């Protein structure tokens, strides 16, 4: 039975779309020449998804870089089963609406298939490098700040950034699987590549004209991106992050380099490199394909209907009151 959604901020429930048959990643063969836009750019346009079961880091106990197709399918099936597991009625987990019923779980969406055991391709062990001394210090400071801020439901600012409808994982950069609605729309015009991330209607407009990065006083959640073509590969460099949504513990001085190459009609090869000497002593990189999916992209008006936050906070305050005065039962 579906309960009204109260726990999550992601209320927007798009219409379920039928999942096309998953395709395998292309093996090397005849080199693919992407079509061109009218102004001569390699054409990356269309609707794409980075929905995937492949984790960023290689799971414990796995040492190889690539699964066999059978192993990959088995890993996917196991993950899908976990995702679709029924929740126990009466538990907190059961309060959340059932993803599967709305077609939001990955098994019902187009998945960008990959045989990799991790998205990370460098370092070769498929794991994020260890934090350096500065990185550790920052992590400790952030943990301390979280402690001072109080409990998770004390104020809206203590809640996850995605629940607050400020920004979600699909935006990046680097652009990560959002968990559901992992959809993008790419539109190109002379001198620009535009990437629209479905959640939360986040647009990066990437200029291709070699303009300089802005001064360090300007900082953004998505940083500031600059792009250029190297042959058929779009290279996008992003700096000027504001540090409030640090990717895996990174600093505001992180530099992200993304490379987009269309390798088939229905696939873009997406690679990213993280360069953040204030956090890691070496760069590290990952590869995550974007698979063609069906449009259109629906409006994700997260903040406008964010009943979740208001209700959670109100509930927490009601609980506080009850704890403080157990005699007054049921009064709000």
């Amino acid at each position, binding site marked *: 039975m579906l309960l009204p959604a109260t726990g999550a901020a992601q209320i927007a429930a798009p219409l379920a779309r039928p999942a096309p048959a998953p395709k395998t990643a292309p093996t090397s063969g005849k080199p693919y020449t992407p079509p061109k836009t009218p102004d001569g750019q390699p054409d990356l346009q269309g609707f794409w998804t980075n929905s995937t079961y492949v984790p960023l880091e290689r799971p414990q106990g796995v040492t190889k870089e690539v699964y066999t197709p059978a192993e990959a399918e088995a890993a996917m099936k196991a993950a899908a089963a976990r995702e679709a597991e029924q929740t126990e009625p009466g538990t907190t987990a059961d309060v959340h609406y059932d993803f599967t019923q709305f077609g939001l779980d990955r098994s019902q969406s187009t998945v960008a298939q990959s045989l990799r055991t991790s998205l990370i391709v460098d370092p070769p062990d498929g794991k994020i490098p260890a934090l350096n001394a500065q990185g550790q210090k920052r992590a400790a400071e952030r943990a301390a700040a979280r402690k001072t801020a109080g409990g998770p*439901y004390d104020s809206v600012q203590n809640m996850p950034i995605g629940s607050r409808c400020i920004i979600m994982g699909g935006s990046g950069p680097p652009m990560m699987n959002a968990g559901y609605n992992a959809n993008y729309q790419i539109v190109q015009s002379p001198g620009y590549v535009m990437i629209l991330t479905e959640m939360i209607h986040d647009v990066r407009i990437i200029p291709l004209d070699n303009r300089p990065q802005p001064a360090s006083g300007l900082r953004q959640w998505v940083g500031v991106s600059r792009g250029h073509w190297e042959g058929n590969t779009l290279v996008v460099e992003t700096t000027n992050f504001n540090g409030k949504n640090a990717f895996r513990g990174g600093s505001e001085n992180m530099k992200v380099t993304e490379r987009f190459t269309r390798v088939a009609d229905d696939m873009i090869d997406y690679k990213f490199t993280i360069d953040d000497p204030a956090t890691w002593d070496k760069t590290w990189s990952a590869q995550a394909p974007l698979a063609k999916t069906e449009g259109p992209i629906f409006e994700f008006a997260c903040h406008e209907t964010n009943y979740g936050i208001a209700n959670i906070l109100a509930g927490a305050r009601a609980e506080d009151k009850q704890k403080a005065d157990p005699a007054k039962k049921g009064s709000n």
Partner: protein
Amino acid sequence: MRNQFLTRVTVAAIATCVATAVALVTAQTGGYRAPRGPDGKPNLNGIWQAINSANYDIEAHSAAPSPVLELGASGAVPAGLGVVEGGTLPYTPEALKKRNENRANRLKLDPEVKCYLPGVPRATYMPFPFQIIQSQKHIMLIHEYAGAVRTIYMADQTEAPADSWMGWSNGRWEGESLVVDTKGFNDSSWFDRSGNFHSDALHVVERITARSADTLNYEVTVEDPKVFTRPWKMSMPLYRRVEPNAQILEFRCVEFVEDLLYGHLKKPPSQ
């Protein structure tokens, strides 16, 4: 021989007709013909912004004090000659009452205060730039304010699959003009800060026409039989942001309104 002569005459006749038609069209836009993009269509790419006080009040209005005392002149309202053709909005009597209630309670009710998506056409004349990214199948309008996005479908057009804040837009070219037909709005956005509003029956048709290298004519017809007695029009120029390296920056305002919306739900400091 005879066929060739006829062909020549016919071709000449057609050419004259076309030339006249083109002249008529260009006469309407004051004779300006926008350069064509690589897609062969008028090139509307660029970063644009309205310069007027329409976001305060789309009807004619005098300057007025700030609704917030502490802001003083910074929060005060500049005057405006109005962007609504004919001057006054044709509300039904009940709708006019609601507009006036909206206006009296605008600090609490204006969706802009809460950083909600601005709807159409308000997004166009918010005091923030927006960028047009034009491809053959989709023309994107990307607004700096709240990161609002509009996709104008030039192909694969469908009806709105569901209601939304920014509506569902289908576009077509009519000569020099991009005509955008938008439906599928919810009833939650306003036209300005003064309480002018619409219902979910809102239907907006915009015409965007280049009038010079760095300006556009923006004309809007608004129809909403639940609120207005007849359709009405607004129009204004849009100006190109010509400074080098102009770009749309973030105005991610959700963070800025959290205390306003949820501050009263903050846990009080323990005694």
